C-alpha cells in the first residue's frame, strides 16, 4: 500500500493499527514530518509537543487494543482555548502567552484516556473571538487551499491542520460558528454538538451560554467517533447534560435517508450570497431528495435578527468572563502605581483589538440605563429564534442550509470592518442561540477551487439524525476525498506571511 500515513482518516488508521500493519510511532512520525513539511506555509500550530507525542505513541504501541481505547495511537490536535496540562494554552492572546494550565480539560482527558496522542495546540482568534484566525496575537493561519486566504475562524488552526493532513482530527470550540465556518472554508467536517453534550470544563470561557466544544475531522465517521469519546455528563460542568447517550458511530449504519424530512429555510438563501455557494447547496438538496429524503420549504422568520442578538449576548457574557484577566493569579501583569492601574494597564496591553472591542460592547450592553434596551431585549429575541426552530422541528427531522454565505476570503480583506467580518457567521449563529446541533461538510468547490460547506442542523440531542444525513450525502459524493494542493514540493519555497 502506498498511501501516505498522514493522509489517513481516523477509522482507516485504526484498522491499520489494530492489524499491526502500522505502529503508533510510525503514524506519529509521519504526522510530525508532514507538519515540518507544510506548517511553515499553513501556520496551523501555535505549540508542538513532539516529545510527549512520541512518548504517548510508544505507550500506545505497548498496550493491546481494547474497547476502552478506541483512539489508541491516533494523533490529534487541540484548539488553544482548551486547557492541556503542562502544555501552553495561550488562547491566541498575549495575556496568556506563558500560561500552562495545571489540569486537562475534560474533553482532552477523555481523548487521552481513549488512547489519543496530542500533537500540539492549534491557532485561533484571540479567546475564540473572530471568524478568520487573523485575531490571533501571534500570527494568522493560512487556508491550505489558497495560502492567501483565511482558514475561517475561530477554530481556523484546527480546521487548517485537519485539511492539510497535519493531524487526523482536532478539537475546536463553537460559540457562534467557530467550528462549522472554518470547516466549510477548509473543506473538512465540523460538528457543533448540542449545548451541554460535551463538558466545558477546561474550555476557556468566552460566552458561557453559547460555548460548546466540537470536533473537526476528515469525514463524518471520524467526527462520530470523536464525539462518542468526548460526549457525556461531567460533574465538573454544572451545565453538562446528564442523559443516556448513544454510540454515535452506530447512527451511521443507516445507509439511506428515505423518508427523512429535510427543511429548507428560505431565510438562508439571500441576495448577496455567493452564487456558487447557493448553487452547490441547492444541488446537495436535490441529491438528498434523489436519495429518498423529502424536502420541506419552511421559514425561520427571526433569522435576520440572529446577528444583532449574538453581538449583544456574546460580548456581554465575554465582558464578565474576561474580567478574570487582571494580572493577579496568572497571565501577564503590567505593573501600575495602584492595583486598579495595574488591572487597566495589564488588560490594555494584554488584549488585542477585537477582544477589547467586544469587552467594551458587552460592558456597554450591561451598563446601567442600557441593560433593558440591549441585553434584555436580545435575550427576548433569542427566545423567538429558539421558537422558530421548535416549530420547524415539529415538521422536519433536520434543516439543511449553507454554512457560510461565501467561500474563504482573502487575508486582510475584512480586518478593519467588524460588521463585514461578523456577516460570515450569519448562517451559524442561530444554532448556538437555540442551543441545538449542527454539522458542516464539503458539498462542492467554487471556480477558484475553494471548498463550499453544507450545514445540517438538528434539534436538541439530534446528533444521530444530523450525522446520518451528513454521512449518507458524503458517501454519495466525493467532495470529502479532495485534498488541498499542498505538498513536499512546496516546502522548498520561501515562507509566506
Amino acid at each position, binding site marked *: 500500500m502506498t498511501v501516505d500515513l498522514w493522509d489517513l482518516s481516523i477509522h482507516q488508521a485504526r484498522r491499520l493499527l489494530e492489524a499491526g500493519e502500522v505502529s503508533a510511532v510510525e503514524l506519529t512520525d509521519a504526522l510530525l514530518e508532514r507538519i515540518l513539511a507544510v506548517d511553515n506555509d499553513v501556520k496551523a500550530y501555535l505549540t508542538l509537543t513532539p516529545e510527549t507525542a512520541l512518548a504517548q505513541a510508544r505507550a500506545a504501541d505497548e498496550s493491546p487494543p481494547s474497547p476502552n481505547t478506541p483512539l489508541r495511537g491516533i494523533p490529534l490536535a487541540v484548539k488553544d482555548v482548551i486547557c492541556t496540562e503542562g502544555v501552553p494554552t495561550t488562547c491566541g492572546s498575549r495575556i496568556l502567552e506563558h500560561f500552562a494550565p495545571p489540569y486537562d480539560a475534560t474533553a482532552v482527558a477523555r481523548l487521552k484516556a481513549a488512547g489519543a496522542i496530542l500533537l500540539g495546540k492549534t491557532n485561533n482568534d484571540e479567546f475564540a473571538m473572530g471568524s478568520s484566525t487573523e485575531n490571533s496575537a501571534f500570527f494568522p493561519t493560512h487556508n491550505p487551499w489558497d495560502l492567501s486566504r483565511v482558514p475561517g475562524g475561530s477554530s481556523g488552526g484546527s480546521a487548517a491542520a485537519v485539511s492539510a493532513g497535519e493531524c487526523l482530527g482536532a478539537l475546536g470550540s463553537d460559540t457562534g460558528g467557530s467550528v462549522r465556518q472554518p470547516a466549510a472554508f477548509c473543506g473538512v467536517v465540523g460538528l457543533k454538538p448540542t449545548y451541554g453534550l460535551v463538558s466545558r470544563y477546561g474550555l476557556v470561557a468566552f460566552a458561557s451560554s453559547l460555548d460548546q466544544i466540537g470536533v473537526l475531522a476528515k469525514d463524518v465517521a471520524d467526527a462520530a467517533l470523536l464525539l462518542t469519546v468526548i460526549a457525556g455528563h461531567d460533574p465538573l460542568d454544572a451545565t453538562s447534560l446528564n442523559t443516556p447517550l448513544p454510540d454515535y458511530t452506530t447512527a451511521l449504519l443507516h445507509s439511506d435517508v428515505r423518508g427523512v424530512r429535510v427543511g429548507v429555510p428560505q431565510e438562508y438563501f439571500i441576495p448577496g450570497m455567493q452564487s456558487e455557494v447557493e448553487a452547490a447547496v441547492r444541488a446537495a438538496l436535490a441529491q438528498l431528495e434523489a436519495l429518498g429524503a423529502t424536502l420541506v420549504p419552511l421559514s425561520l422568520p427571526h433569522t*435576520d435578527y440572529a446577528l444583532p442578538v449574538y*453581538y449583544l449576548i456574546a460580548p456581554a457574557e465575554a465582558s464578565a468572563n474576561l*474580567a478574570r484577566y487582571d494580572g493577579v493569579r496568572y497571565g501577564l501583569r503590567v505593573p501600575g502605581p495602584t492595583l486598579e492601574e495595574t488591572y487597566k494597564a495589564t488588560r490594555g496591553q494584554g488584549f488585542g483589538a477585537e477582544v477589547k472591542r467586544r469587552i*467594551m*460592547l458587552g*460592558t456597554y450592553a450591561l*451598563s446601567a440605563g442600557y441593560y433593558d434596551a440591549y441585553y434584555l*431585549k436580545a435575550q427576548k429575541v433569542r427566545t423567538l429564534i429558539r421558537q422558530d426552530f421548535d416549530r420547524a422541528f415539529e415538521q422536519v427531522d433536520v434543516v439543511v442550509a449553507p454554512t457560510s454565505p461565501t467561500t474563504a476570503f482573502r487575508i486582510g480583506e475584512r480586518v478593519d470592518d467588524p460588521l463585514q467580518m461578523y456577516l460570515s457567521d450569519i448562517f451559524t449563529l442561530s444554532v448556538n442561540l437555540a442551543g441545538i446541533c449542527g454539522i458542516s461538510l464539503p458539498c462542492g468547490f467554487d471556480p477558484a477551487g475553494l471548498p463550499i460547506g453544507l450545514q445540517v442542523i438538528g434539534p436538541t440531542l439530534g446528533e444521530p439524525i444530523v450525522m446520518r444525513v451528513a454521512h449518507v450525502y458524503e458517501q454519495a459524493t466525493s467532495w470529502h476525498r479532495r485534498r488541498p494542493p499542498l505538498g513536499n514540493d512546496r516546502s522548498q519555497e520561501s515562507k509566506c506571511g
Partner: protein
Amino acid sequence: MALTLQEVEHIADLARLALTDEEKERFREQLSAVLAHAARLEELDTAAISPTATVLPLRNVLRADQPGSPAPREDMLANAPAADKGCFRVPAVWSTTPGTEG
C-alpha cells in the same frame, strides 16, 4: 446611535481597560456602527416574550457537600506573575503612598 468620547471613556473605565486616544476614537466609531445595527431589534414587539438566559432545563445543580482533594497550592501559584509565602502578591490595595508595593 453614536457614542461620545466621554461614553467610550466611561465604558473603558468600567471594563478596567487602558485605551490609547487612537483606540478610543476607533472604538467610538466601530461600536456606534455595531449598536446602530443592533437597534434593528426594536422592530420586534417582545412585550410578552420571556428572555432566554440558558437553553437548558436545568436549575440549581447541586453536588454532595463532601471535602475533596484540592489541587496543590504550588501548582495553583505556578502561573502567578508574583507569589510570596504561598500567596498571590499584588500592589497594596490601601496605601497612603501610591507607588509602593506590598
